[in-house]
């Protein structure tokens, strides 16, 4: 059963297709063939898969110059390659792809900056995987903290502060919530409010630095590979060179948006494959009628294929936008960043709704863990929540388009 409709391959080179095919084969072998028995077992399935993806397939080194131990790809050149590859990883396990996405988005945002050469050993260490936990602004709970609101109706405050102390920074933040990976990260990419200037900056903080303390686990609906926990920073000393980016690190969110959109697309593709396999052997209404021959079912399944096609189109177009900064603007500019975030939120919603409809068709098999469909549904829901509230982000888009954002 062919579950994909043709879409334009403009701008996709043979080499990029070949890499995506290699990742597809890897996902089939290492994740899809094994997840039926190992489910979401971190030690037996997910962690080995992460090592394979980051080190053996080489995703971790993809964006770093050869001189720094990498493959020498620039982010804009690699946008399509990585989108296609992560789509295939998402077919296997969205959580594994999410961990890679955090690492790649951080690298993409930093790469090319003044300090990237100095930071390469942190993000691309020789011989080991560098799991990165982004600690980005989030909704604030409880009384206002030292980081404060930003005075804009969509403004989530930074979760930590970094105080200048000569050539170094002193980082503080209580019970911060990483986007994911807090438990296993070697590196925390912390968007801090810089003091005394009051501006923002992205600091790379090794997880084993003195004063970094991991707290209670955060048990999330999905993304079992990205085990998370609260992280507290108390007087953590960070060398000045580890201020990777000055400003709000929009680029990180932009790249993350592309990668999470690709993962959502992969999850929906996998959901269609699962539904297709399941449907082949089903009959309904006791008359020997094949499940897929029923018009209600057939219409719904076709709608899912259309939805998946739409999702793949948006992901590829977003990759093209990020691949052409000269034409559309750089990833860290507001219009591109807001376009990426809005597209990713929409894609995650479409994918989640598609998986939800697929579950409806499969009935109890849809929510039984045995079929792995519900896991994609939980994972895409988690991605959608981590991408943030579309309501709030639309206010920033409104401000960008109309010059104000209301309140």
């Amino acid at each position, binding site marked *: 059963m062919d579950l994909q409709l043709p879409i334009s391959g403009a701008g996709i080179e043979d080499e990029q297709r070949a890499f995506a095919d290699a990742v597809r084969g890897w996902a089939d072998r290492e994740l899809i063939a094994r997840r039926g028995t190992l489910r979401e077992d971190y030690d037996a399935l997910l962690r080995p898969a992460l090592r394979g993806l980051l080190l053996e397939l080489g995703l971790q080194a993809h964006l770093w110059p050869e001189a720094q131990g990498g493959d020498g790809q620039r982010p804009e050149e690699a946008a399509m390659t990585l989108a296609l590859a992560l789509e295939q990883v998402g077919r296997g396990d969205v959580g594994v792809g999410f961990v890679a996405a955090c690492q790649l988005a951080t690298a993409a945002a930093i790469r090319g900056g003044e300090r990237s050469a100095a930071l390469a050993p942190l993000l691309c260490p020789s011989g080991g995987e560098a799991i990165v936990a982004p600690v980005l602004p989030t909704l*604030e*709970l409880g009384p206002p903290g030292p980081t404060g609101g930003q005075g804009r109706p969509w403004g989530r405050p930074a979760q930590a502060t970094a105080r200048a102390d000569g050539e170094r920074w002193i980082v503080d933040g209580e019970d911060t919530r990483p986007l994911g990976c807090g438990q296993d990260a070697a590196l925390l990419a912390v968007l801090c409010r810089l003091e005394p200037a009051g501006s923002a900056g992205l600091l790379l903080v090794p997880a084993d630095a003195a004063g970094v303390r991991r707290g209670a686990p955060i048990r999330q609906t999905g993304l079992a590979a990205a085990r998370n926990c609260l992280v507290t920073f108390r007087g953590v000393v960070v060398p000045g060179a580890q201020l990777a980016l000055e400003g709000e690190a929009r680029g990180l969110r932009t790249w993350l948006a592309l990668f999470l959109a690709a993962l959502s697309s992969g999850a929906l593709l996998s959901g269609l494959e699962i539904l297709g396999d399941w449907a082949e052997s089903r009959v309904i209404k006791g008359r020997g009628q094949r499940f897929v021959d029923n018009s209600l079912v057939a219409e719904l399944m076709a709608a899912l294929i259309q939805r998946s096609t739409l999702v793949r189109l948006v992901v590829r177009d977003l990759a093209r936008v990020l691949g052409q900064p000269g034409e559309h603007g750089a990833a860290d500019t507001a219009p591109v960043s807001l376009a990426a975030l809005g597209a990713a939120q929409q894609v995650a919603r479409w994918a989640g709704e598609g998986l939800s409809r697929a579950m409806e068709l499969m009935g109890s098999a849809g*929510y039984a863990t045995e079929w792995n469909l519900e896991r994609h549904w939980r994972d895409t829901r988690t991605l959608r929540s981590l991408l943030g509230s579309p309501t709030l982000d639309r206010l920033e888009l409104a401000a960008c388009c109309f010059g104000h954002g209301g309140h």
Partner: protein
Amino acid sequence: MRGIDQITRPLEYLSPMDDLLGGIVRRWADERVIPNRRSFDEDWREHRLIEPALDRLLGELGLQRVLFPEELGGWGLGHSDHLGVASMRLMEEIARADSGIAVAVGVTFWPLLLICREPHVSWRLCREIAPMFCGTTKACLAANAMTEPQGGADIENLDLLRGSTITTTAAKDGDEWVINGHKLWPTNTGGAAGLLAVVCTTRTGSSDPEDLAVIFVPADRPGVTQGAPYQKAGMAADKNGDVWLEDVRVPLWYRACGPGDDFRYFKEVIAFGNMGSIAMVSGVMLNAYEVLQRFANQARVGGRTLKEHDATAGVLADIVADLEVIRISGYQYARMLDRRDLYGPPWSDEIVAKGRALKYSACDRALRSLGRALDVMESFGVDREWDLEKHWRDLKIIQLWMGGKQLCQMETARWYFECESL
């Protein structure tokens, strides 16, 4: 602060007993379930946390006795013309804490309706079965063994298939039934059920309603095997598994209502199932409202609490508006089940179709609302600490059971548009 009791209920439908019972269940939920429910997902196989909560509610507080006649130690609600509304209230309160427990309780009542509810009370079976439920302070769960491997929801599609796809057979042998077959997914199986109501046929392939039989089988009868529970996306308190019946023997009078009547009154079971499902959706949404209230009062963006943020307040308003509609429609349907004088018998095709329509509409509406609530809460929404994601997972299962949305659509279209071939 305003709370869930300000969400509209049609007070003219409620009896004083409803609030008394509802209050008892709410206290149980607040004390015994809500503090532990975040660990229920890990308890899906063993029920170390869940079983004591069920023992308290069903055994010690006695909820498992409600349908049986007073003469047999029950509360006599089977005779009441308030059973629908009382059930709505109870299921809603239980589901506010945990809809998995709500379905375990609700499905226990399901087969008992066939023998405890007027006008089809079977005193002989009530006398036989009542001690399992009324003579103990331990929870006793029942299962409605209906779904089979080959047919999914075909058996519930009564109007179209009339039992013709059922492969579980009941053959007469002297004064006993001999039952053989394989059932999948009944709630309260996986080793939990003490009593099974087996939906079977007395003539394989027959679409004659007289051949559809519902036969009670104590789960400890020789030949009954319950498999291990399945692992699911949620609803850990509801154990589901395989049930194999191999030459299981029970007396002939263990058949629920008799030829023709089993078929007829099984539709009443379906109607109550739809009402119970809407009650659970309502309960889930009530607790979602509580969670959102707490969150929107604490969380801040742009220097304001979320509830004072106009754009977010619009979303919150949509969610509570959906809850109002779901709750009032659930109570209306429950009252329709009670008022046969106005709406006809609860086993009629009309009542079943209206239940299907309201159930799938409530599920769709609630899923959309909970999705938006999760959006509002950003990363906190998918954090188990806030309970909203649990309700979202459970709600999806409510939507999918009893034939799922598509069967609901077909039964709805079939009645309202008088379809002849669906």
